[in-house]
């Protein structure tokens, strides 16, 4: 006679515990990503499950500090300074929303960009030589 096993307990994911997108890695400060050991997909942020294959065998990885600006806008919100934001497609094909800064090279779609820091703030800016 077969015995039906007891229903297992599911546990909540403490996803609010560490939601900082910036992390310290041996190569320096980088955006935090998560790579799936089963299918190889890389995702933005500290994640516990792969959105492609639903594997939980995932690990925290540094994301590339360089990529290409997909698109951007300058936001003029009431009571705030004008802020440039955009989507950056990092070199490993992870897309992240990012604050943007521009110096001598103007922002435009498809411009190569690189990660920069201002204290604890991070941003992307057109890469030198772009």
């Amino acid at each position: 006679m077969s015995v039906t096993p007891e229903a297992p307990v599911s546990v909540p994911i403490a996803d609010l515990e560490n939601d900082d997108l910036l992390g310290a890695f041996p190569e320096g400060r980088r955006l935090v990503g998560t790579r799936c050991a089963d299918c190889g997909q890389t995702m933005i942020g500290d994640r516990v499950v792969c959105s492609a294959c639903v594997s939980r065998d995932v690990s925290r990885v540094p994301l590339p500090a360089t990529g290409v600006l997909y698109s951007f806008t300058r936001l003029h919100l009431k009571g705030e300074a004008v802020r440039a934001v955009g989507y950056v497609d990092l070199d490993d094909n992870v897309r992240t929303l990012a604050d943007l800064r521009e110096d001598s090279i103007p922002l435009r779609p498809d411009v190569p960009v690189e990660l920069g820091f201002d204290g604890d703030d991070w941003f992307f800016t057109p890469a030198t030589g772009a």
Partner: protein
Amino acid sequence: MAEDAFVISASMIPFGKYRSSSYVGLAVSPLIDALQRAGVQKSDVDAVYVGHSYGGMMTGQRITKEIGLGTVPTVNVDNACSSGATAVHEAATAIAQGLIDVAVVIGVEKLTQFGGGTLPLSPEDREVRQGIVMPAVYAMRATRYLYENDATVEDLALVSVKARRHGALNPFAQFRKEVTVEEVLAARPVADPLTLLMCCPTGDGAAVVVLASERARNRLGAGKSARVAASVLHSGQVAEGYRDMTKPEITYQSVRDAYAEAGIEPWDLDMIEFHDAFSIAELVYYEAFGLTEKQSAVSLLRDGRTTFGGDVVVNPSGGLLAKGHPVGASGVAQVAEAFWQVTGQAGARQIPDARWAATHVTGGGTAGLDHGACTVHIFEAA
């Protein structure tokens, strides 16, 4: 297989700012009017579907209890801007499956409760915590679109000019004043390249439609109706990496399925009410609706093929840009416009002999998704 569902009446309040009205206050009048025009008694109603995003707990029941419409199932639906259309979809589906005969659909929203500014999004979302707002999403879409296509900011302004011209004809529209390209371009910048006049306004509204099976429609002696030829709902699919923001896949899928279900081609449509929350959306959705095979989106617009007197009138009501966009109400208001157009009740903005009408809303700013939800309906005069 499936039975036909029909829209047999529609009512709505003009969209606008009603700070002294609650969700109940916004919705009860159009509810009573829609029932009366349909010749429907409370006892005829089999189910109530209510779309809203910010009404709080039991919004639908708070409204229906005011007229003593209880007992029957009331389903509250939140799918952001698609909430109202999702409620229509649920009603049409239940009728098509033969589960019910008469459904009341309410779309209602009060955005003035937030005191202005951009739509509040869920702070649980990563990009929301990073500071994303809906105008930024559409602005990035616009930046990329202008980069990839032979289009200019003047074209984005032209969308608003057309919307306002249509809205000027519509007594239900929040904005009834026409604007010029120059005025649109000179308006306050919101998210470059979008100016304030390229963004839908904040406002309040309520719209109600009554749907019935063929059996109930005959029993009630309903007059001219709109047959639901297609009712499609899709959810967004996550992309962790590259996504083409100028070709929103959720709308392409929904439109494809809707044309297949209705058995028609894009140019069979006499009108489309689609989700022009920001002016760039109109250009993007011309393509998604299959209108650009022979002519680019901007040339359709510039040539007047999508306005009155053209081949397919896009947003005859003024759309979200001019009629207004009280999130949960918009999808139902679009269906009301389609109903009025195919039954010849659209007054100064009537499209002659309108037979086929489509409506489209997408909803939700969610990291990794194009949109959270997309609903497309196609109606035929019946």
